[in-house]
């Protein structure tokens, strides 16, 4: 009798606990929870890295803050979860994180069969190589026969094998490591002659991990397109729209010349486009259409900044990464950043 009672109780408990497990409206869950859970890198300078006080900085981190500012009006209502390259997609698929803002390349496979969708491109990047200056290598085509350190589970290793095959570099060997720190450590210890990852990652690693950054040179060629952007789970169109337009709001603000410093003054601008973006008129409420407050974009720019503000303080020429805007400049300044109009 005791066995039956225990078995029946287990069965009932299981039936209750393992009930319908569909996520429902992700955006509603986020609002109910009161904070946004954001998956970021464990430590990539310029994109997501925590300082010794535990404060996160970087382009991906600031983007998450912008989304939180749009949803809650408070850029600090966000929890950052560091994820490795192997865990990041499972964390997003399982519901552990709401937004994956982790220098992830937008590819067809990831956009289709992995249960997530990309909301846009926050950084146009490409894959490059870094070698020690003393080897005297001037171009990636000379790397036949070299050992190349690479991190596993990323588009980097796929691009590398494609590149080696396309250029008949059969003698080059890829040494694959699970963690970023191991690949970087092996390269700087001399295990490999070259290290390959996104060009922004190369700049970050050289500035942070090299004993003497001057001893290493980043080769000029980029062997692939790496559009890095945030992703959300499939199934919630509202959250998808919010995250998408958070980026566009930052780009529109830069295009209008609205910066973090002057956003309060810009509220009294006669430009209808700026008034619409900042939500000045209550008759023209763009935020309501997205399910947000009227001043959603104003909060983004005021608390985080426009795209240029974020870029300059994370990866810009004045930071150790020293990356020029290049492809990441606005479309009317020679780059690829183009936001649909907020109207």
């Amino acid at each position, binding site marked *: *009798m005791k*066995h*039956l009672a225990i*078995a*029946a109780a*287990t*069965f009932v408990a*299981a*039936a209750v606990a*393992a009930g319908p*497990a*569909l*996520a429902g409206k992700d955006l509603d869950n986020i609002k109910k929870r009161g904070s946004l859970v954001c998956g970021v890198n464990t430590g990539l300078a310029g994109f997501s890295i925590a300082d010794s006080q535990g404060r996160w900085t970087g382009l991906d981190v600031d983007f998450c803050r912008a989304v939180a500012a749009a949803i809650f009006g408070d850029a600090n209502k966000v929890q950052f979860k560091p994820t490795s*390259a*192997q865990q990041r*997609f*499972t964390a997003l*698929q399982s519901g552990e994180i709401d937004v994956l803002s982790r220098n992830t390349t937008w590819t067809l*496979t*990831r956009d289709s*069969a*992995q*249960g997530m969708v990309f909301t846009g491109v926050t950084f146009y990047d490409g894959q490059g190589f870094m070698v020690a200056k003393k*080897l005297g290598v001037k171009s990636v085509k*000379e*790397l036949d*026969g*070299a*050992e190349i350190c*690479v991190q*596993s*589970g*990323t588009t980097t*290793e*796929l691009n*590398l*094998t*494609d590149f080696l*095959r396309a250029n008949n570099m059969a*003698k080059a*060997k*890829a*040494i*694959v*490591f*699970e*963690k970023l720190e*191991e*690949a970087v*450590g*092996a390269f700087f*210890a*001399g*295990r490999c*002659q070259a290290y390959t990852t996104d060009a922004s990652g190369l700049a970050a690693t050289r500035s942070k991990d090299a004993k003497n950054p001057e001893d290493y040179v980043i080769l000029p060629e980029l062997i692939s397109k790496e559009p890095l952007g945030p992703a959300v*789970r*499939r*199934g919630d169109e509202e959250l998808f729209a919010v995250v998408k337009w958070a980026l566009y709001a930052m780009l529109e603000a830069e295009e209008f010349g609205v910066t973090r410093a002057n956003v309060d003054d810009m509220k009294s601008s006669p430009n209808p486009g700026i008034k619409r973006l900042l939500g000045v008129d209550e008759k023209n409420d763009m935020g309501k259409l997205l399910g947000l407050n009227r001043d959603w974009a104003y909060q983004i720019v005021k608390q985080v900044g426009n795209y240029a503000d974020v870029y300059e303080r994370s990866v810009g020429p004045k930071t150790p990464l020293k990356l020029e805007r290049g492809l990441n400049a606005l479309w009317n300044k020679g780059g690829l950043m183009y936001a649909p109009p907020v109207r």
Partner: protein
Amino acid sequence: MGGIAVAEPVRASGRTQAAGAWWNDRRFRAILYQVLFLAAVIAFGWLLVSNTIENLRARGLKSGFDFLESRSGIPISDSVIPWSDNDTFGRAYLVGILNTIRVGVLGIIFATILGTLIGIARLSPNWLIAKLASGYVEAIRNVPLLLQLILIYSFVRTALPEQLDPLVIGGGFYLSKSGLLFPLLNLLPEHYVTAGVLLASIVATVLYNLWAKQRHYRTGVSPPRLAPSLALLILPAVIVFVVLGAPASFDVATKERFRFVGGGAVAPEFLTILTGLVIYTAAFIAEIVRSGILAVSHGQTEAASALGLPRGKILRLVLLPQALRVIIPPMTSQYLNLVKNSSLATVVGYPEVVAIEQITMNQTSRALECILLIMIVYLTISLSISFAMNVYNKRLALKER
């Protein structure tokens, strides 16, 4: 069903049955409860599986094992069978499994040898040797394996010479950060013939030794064992090789722009994981061997030497068979631990099966399928080791008559 209650009448059929309904019959109730419980477990399992499938579909995640047949595009630096990035994920798994087996088999062999030596050393009457062995065991057992591996790898990749300036051991052997480079024999038909002859020689040697043992048991005269065995093993193969012309051409590593390319190489990653596993597991095996030897009563040794047996024969015929009965079961656990610990090789960049699985899981996003495959792989390897050890254990067991 407990004891038979006195008040219950025993029917002609022999079943105890209370006066009344079939649902009071104890045996029937026992069977009923078991059936219900089994049904509940099956229902629970079915609920979990269907829930998982439902969730996967709701999130738009594809499932299934078809990814094993698609092109992988991943690089694998160390492989027993030929590998190119055009090969499928299924073949990648195979490469990973072979790498795991390679490090597992070699690890088990070397760890057993090293562990036995250290275990015996700890029992040595020489104070220094005994203390060194104790220190080794205590130090290695108490530091996590992951840290030891990281330490060894950091040391290996900093201490080894640069690729362009390797340590020249001579004869085409080089030691550098790329690993131990050795000349690779270009296999010709003559070599296959010689290998066949060598195989036949090994069989012949084993048969000769069996015959010699039988002769010894029957007549008490022990025919010579060592010299004929060596001759039988070496001479035929050598003669055949020389007669065929002794062709030998090697693929030797030559200096290129970045490193020495060519020949065969033992990668530093493989050396690291093998060394780390061997050192770690040997510490545990040493203690098992020591306990096995101590478990044999000293009276056995004394009686054996009273019979006039030399030390070697005492060890082989009296001590070891009794000690092995104590040693084998925990040894099985250590072998299984070694194989499972090889999954830490991802830390040092050695492409064994868990590393391959992580890459595959990340590239294809089929988390459940990949983990299921890995569990099956490890279960198979571990069960095989356990099975082999259990067979050996049964052979050693005291035969009860």
